[in-house]
């Protein structure tokens, strides 16, 4: 669908070639345990195992007094939680709000791993030059490499979130007897902020991969940049979920702007000449 949109927008010259590169990269990723395992393992831990364990613990523990903790939160957030019965507060707070920031690690990590494989990995496998000798425009190749990382990152995030929602609602059902995930802020996170974060991971890795000779080196270099971003994301998105919906939208917009800035700069440097000179 996205390739169709891109074709319609005229952003690429040869959509079939773009599709062929994406299909090749995705087939290769499916066969690579080193790439596939972290892509599946981390989201499973974050989006399934952790909410299940914490949710179960929260529903079975003796009802704690959260009033002091909630008093420290902004009124917009604290009020709906405080209005809940005491036995519901813990599970809603943990699975409905406090785990949410961790969700952003998924699109960031998946897009980073795939981008490192797509850009620096081609150099490492000595397959980059073969691609450069084919009749595909520089910008088409760049678009293919971006989409090949971006689409799976968003897909894994969305599927992961679906799993998270199912697990969270299931473990909380004995206490809540209703569906509480997703909230409206969760939806903004999923549909707006998560793709932005995936794009940001891509933008960083495109820059980093230009200097790295192997995917591992790119991941290490990227990690140095991405880790602070993760901490920032955790901190920010904790705040994000504590602030109003419009602010969340604005923060998502800022991440998109940063991501697009990095991607556009990366695209300008993504020329055959530069790539061949470093291949």
């Amino acid at each position, binding site marked *: 669908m996205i390739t169709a949109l891109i074709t319609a927008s005229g952003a690429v010259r040869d959509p079939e070639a773009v599709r062929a590169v994406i299909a090749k990269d995705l087939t290769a990723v499916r*066969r690579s345990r080193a790439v596939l395992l972290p892509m599946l393992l981390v989201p499973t831990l974050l989006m399934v195992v952790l909410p299940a364990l914490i949710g179960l613990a929260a529903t079975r523990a003796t009802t704690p007094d959260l009033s002091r903790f909630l008093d420290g939160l902004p009124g917009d957030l604290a009020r709906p939680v405080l209005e809940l019965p005491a036995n519901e507060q813990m599970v809603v707070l943990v699975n409905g709000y406090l785990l949410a920031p961790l969700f952003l690690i998924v699109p960031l990590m998946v897009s980073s791993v795939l981008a490192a494989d797509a850009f620096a990995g081609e150099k490492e*496998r000595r*397959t980059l030059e*073969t691609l450069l*000798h084919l*009749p595909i425009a520089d910008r088409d190749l760049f678009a293919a490499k971006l989409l090949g990382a971006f689409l799976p990152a968003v897909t894994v995030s969305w599927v992961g979130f679906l799993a998270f929602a199912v697990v969270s609602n299931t473990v909380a059902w004995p206490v809540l007897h209703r569906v509480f995930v997703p909230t409206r802020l969760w939806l903004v996170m999923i549909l707006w902020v998560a793709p932005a974060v995936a794009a940001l991971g891509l933008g960083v890795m495109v820059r980093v991969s230009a200097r790295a000779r192997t995917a591992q080196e790119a991941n290490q270099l990227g990690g140095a940049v991405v880790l602070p971003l993760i901490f920032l994301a955790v901190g920010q998105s904790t705040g994000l979920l504590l602030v109003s919906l419009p602010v969340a939208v604005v923060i998502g917009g800022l991440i998109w702007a940063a991501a697009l800035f990095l991607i556009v700069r990366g695209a300008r440097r993504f020329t055959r000449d530069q790539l061949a000179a470093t291949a």
Partner: protein
Amino acid sequence: MTAAIETVDLTRSFGATNALDGLTFEAGAGEVVALLGPNGAGKTTTVRLLNGILRPDRGTSRVVGLDPQTQGDDVRRVTGVLTEHAGLDDRLTARENLLATARIRGMAADHAAARVTAELARFGLAERADVPVAGASTGERKRIALARALLHDPEVLFLDEPTSGLDPEATRDVVELIGSLATEHGRTVVLCTHFLGEAGRLADRMAVLDRGHLRAFGRPADLAAELWPGLAAELDLGAEAAPEVVEALLRVPGVLSAAAVPSGAEVRVEHRDVLPVLVGVLVAREVPVYAAVPRPPTLEDVYFALREQA
């Protein structure tokens, strides 16, 4: 002969290193040109410039009339490249590697599948077609990469070490294939190789590169004639020629040099017609002559002589 490839003063440097400096040469349609030279001579840079993946600092080039700088994708549609490293994705099968290339080249799915199957069979890879490339031998990888380079029946082929890693039988098949592509199908082949014997068998002309400079370009025989006047020949006399026999040979008009060797004598004459005269002189002196064999210089002789000059 129409020039399929032309370069004039093609120059490219990487930082302070001159990878290619003022390369001027041409290759006709259906011609095999060997680019010879040690590592770092500029062979790969030449191929990259001709296929439009590097931009020259100076100079121009044309490939089947197209400018690689401004018509890179058009050039790459009519060229096929075998890179020094096969450049295959180990995680994909041979068929998947080739299919991806075919689709990127714009072939329709059905046509691509048929071409891939045909090329894999041509290179004896039908049984390995659906196994990940990771387990393939060097020779198999080379054959897969060659099959990929030929998928779209290119007009111009750039082949970087096409037979390295192949066993003798596969080497013979590939050499014959390259020869037939040029002679029977009119394809132009630029062959980068360290195997001088292979280049000698295939190349119509050779370009000797050294640290980015073109040291010589032409037919091996013409280059040999520039290096060594006349024709070398070996006279098999059954034993080392005596000094007076060597002196007698040197007195024959048209003999440029003569020297004793364990089997007889080595001479250099202005023309092959001098050889029967030499045999007559020896017979008249009752020196037995078992053979008089012209020894034209091999491509290897020419190459190393040029390298020494450089």
